[in-house]
C-alpha cells in the first residue's frame, strides 16, 4: 500500500559512472507495479521522484536506478548499504499488463530504461519482449545486461554512435512498428523521444511513462501536470497520480 516508509538500503550498485542503483528492503514497495515510482526524501525542499528499476515480491525488495544530475541525486548516491532512506510509495499508476498474443516492444531512452526493465522483469515471461534502448552515449545504456539475461531481443542506439546504431531509438522503433502492425509499445525517456513515439503509434496500443517536476507526488498540489484530452477539450492531468503512465492517445501534446 502506498505510504511513507523508512526503508533500509540493502545494496548499492554502480551500473556505470554517474549512475547508481539502490536496492530497498520493503515488502510494501515490493508490491509495486512496474511504472510506479517512489518520492525520495533528500535535502532541499522537495522530494525526488524515481521509478522502480526492479521489483521482487519474492525477496521483498524493490530497486531504483538513477543518474546523478543535481544536488538531490548526488546526495542519494552517497547513501551506503545499511542506511535508511525515507520514501513515499509506491506512487502513481504503472503500466497495464501487456496483452498476450501481441508483439510487445519496450522503448527506453537514458534513465527511462529502468522502469521498462521492471516491466520486462514482471511480464517478460508471459509476453516475449523486444527492447529498443537508446542514450546519448554508450555510458547511458544502463541495464542492457539485465535485458539480455532475460532473452529480450535488443536493439541499442546512441546519439554519438559509440554503441549500437548511431541516432535515436525512433529509427529502429519505426522499423519494428512496420514489422509489427498489431504491436504494443511501452516507452519512457526524454520528452522529444516520447513525442516521436506518440506520433508514430496513433491507433496502436502505446503507453508512455512521463516525467514532470513534482511537488507532493501524491496528487494534492497539481504541480506535475501534462495536457490530456478531456471530454470538453484539453485539460491538465497529474503525472504523479493519474500517471506517470498514460495511454499515448490521451496526451494532448
Amino acid at each position, binding site marked *: *500500500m*502506498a*505510504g*511513507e516508509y523508512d526503508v533500509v538500503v540493502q545494496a548499492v550498485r554502480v551500473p556505470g559512472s554517474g549512475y547508481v542503483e539502490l536496492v530497498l528492503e520493503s515488502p510494501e514497495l515490493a508490491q509495486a507495479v512496474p511504472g510506479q515510482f517512489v518520492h525520495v*526524501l533528500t535535502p*532541499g*525542499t*522537495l*522530494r525526488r521522484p524515481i521509478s522502480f528499476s526492479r521489483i521482487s515480491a519474492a525477496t521483498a525488495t524493490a530497486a531504483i536506478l538513477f543518474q546523478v544530475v543535481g544536488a538531490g541525486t548526488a546526495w542519494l548516491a552517497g547513501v551506503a548499504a545499511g542506511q535508511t532512506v525515507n520514501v*513515499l510509495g509506491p506512487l502513481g499508476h504503472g503500466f497495464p499488463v501487456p496483452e498476450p498474443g501481441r508483439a510487445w516492444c519496450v522503448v527506453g531512452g537514458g534513465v527511462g530504461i529502468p522502469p521498462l526493465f521492471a516491466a520486462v522483469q514482471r511480464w517478460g515471461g508471459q509476453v516475449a519482449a523486444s527492447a529498443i534502448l537508446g542514450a546519448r552515449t554508450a555510458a547511458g545504456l544502463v541495464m542492457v545486461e539485465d535485458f539480455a539475461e532475460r532473452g529480450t531481443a535488443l536493439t541499442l542506439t546512441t546519439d554519438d554512435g559509440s554503441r549500437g546504431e548511431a541516432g535515436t531509438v525512433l529509427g529502429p522503433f519505426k522499423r519494428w512498428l512496420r514489422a509489427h502492425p498489431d504491436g504494443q509499445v511501452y516507452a519512457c525517456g526524454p520528452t522529444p523521444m516520447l513525442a516521436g513515439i506518440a506520433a508514430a503509434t496513433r491507433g496502436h496500443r502505446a503507453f508512455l511513462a512521463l516525467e*514532470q*517536476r*513534482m*511537488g*507532493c*507526488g*501524491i*496528487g*494534492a*498540489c*497539481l*504541480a*506535475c*501536470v*501534462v495536457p490530456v484530452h478531456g471530454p470538453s477539450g484539453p*485539460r*491538465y492531468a497529474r503525472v504523479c*497520480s493519474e500517471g506517470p503512465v498514460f495511454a499515448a492517445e490521451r496526451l494532448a501534446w
Partner: protein
Amino acid sequence: MDMTVRLPRGLTLANPVMAASGTFGFGPEYGAYVDIGRLGGVSAKGVSPDPWPGNPPPRVWETPGGLLNSIGLQNPGIETFIAQDLPFLRESGTRVIVNVIGHTVEEYQRVAARLEREPGVDALEINISCPNIKAGGMSFGHDPDQAYAVTQAVRAVTDRPVMVKLSPNIESPARIAEAAVAAGADMISAINTLVGLAIDRHNRRPALGGVTGGLSGPAVKPVALRVVYEVAQAVAVPVIGMGGIAQVEDVLDFLMAGASAVMVGTITFQHPNRMLAIIDGLPAALAVHGFSSLPEIVGVALPTRRQESGR
C-alpha cells in the same frame, strides 16, 4: 494543556495547526498518509465558480530554502468540489475551510453563496492574494478598496466565519487587513506567497511555465512573521499565521508574533505527517518556554503585550 482555539462565529479548532490551502489538495489526496481528523483544520485548494485550467508546466521549482509554484489555481469549479471532495472533508472530522477565488467580486460572491447551502463547511478563506493568475486574484489583495469590496460581497451572502488572506507583495499588508476587517472579515490569514522567478539555465528561460511564481517555504518565514506582527497590531480580529513553518518552534514564533492559529504548507510535501508531529509536540514546547496555556503565548512579542508583562 488545552489546545482548543476559539475563533469568531463559533469556529472552534481542536488545535491551532491547519493545512494551508493548495498544499493539501481538495481533501482526499493525503488521506492515505495523514490522519486528517487530528488536524486543527484543512484549507482546501482555491475554488472558483467555474473550472480553471491552471498554468502550463513546469509548475514548481526548488529554490534555496524555498519553493516556487505557479499552479495558477487549477480547480474543477465549485460544483465538482462540492460533489467530489467536500463529502470526504466533511466526514474527516477536521474543520473544513474553503479557499475562495474569483476573477471578479461577483465570482467570489457566487462561490460563497453556493457554499451557504452546503453543510460541513466551517469557514471561508477569501484568497485575494494569489500571485499566479493574471486577472483578479492578487490585484484584489493589492488595493484596500478592492479588498473591501470583495470582503463585503462575501459577507453579504454568508454567516459563516470569513477570513481574508493577505498578499505580502505590497508595501503595507496591514492596510489591506484593515479594509477587510472594516468590510466584515472575522479573521485575517497571512501570508500567501511572494512573487519570485527562477531561471532554467539549461533552457535559458524562466523555469516556470507561468514565468513568475509564488515563493513559499522556510525562506519566507521572516517576511511572514513581519506581516503577522504588523497585522496583529493593526486589527483586533484573530490572525492565522503561515509561511515557512517546518517545526514546532516555528509555530511558537508565529503565536508570539500575534497569530491565534497557524497553517502549514510546503513542508507537507516533504513530510506529510509533520503537521501531526507539530500538534503532538506543541504542549511540551509551550511548557518548555514557560507557558501554561495556549492563549498565554498569543501575541506575547507584540509591543502592547510586552508592556503589560514588563519584558
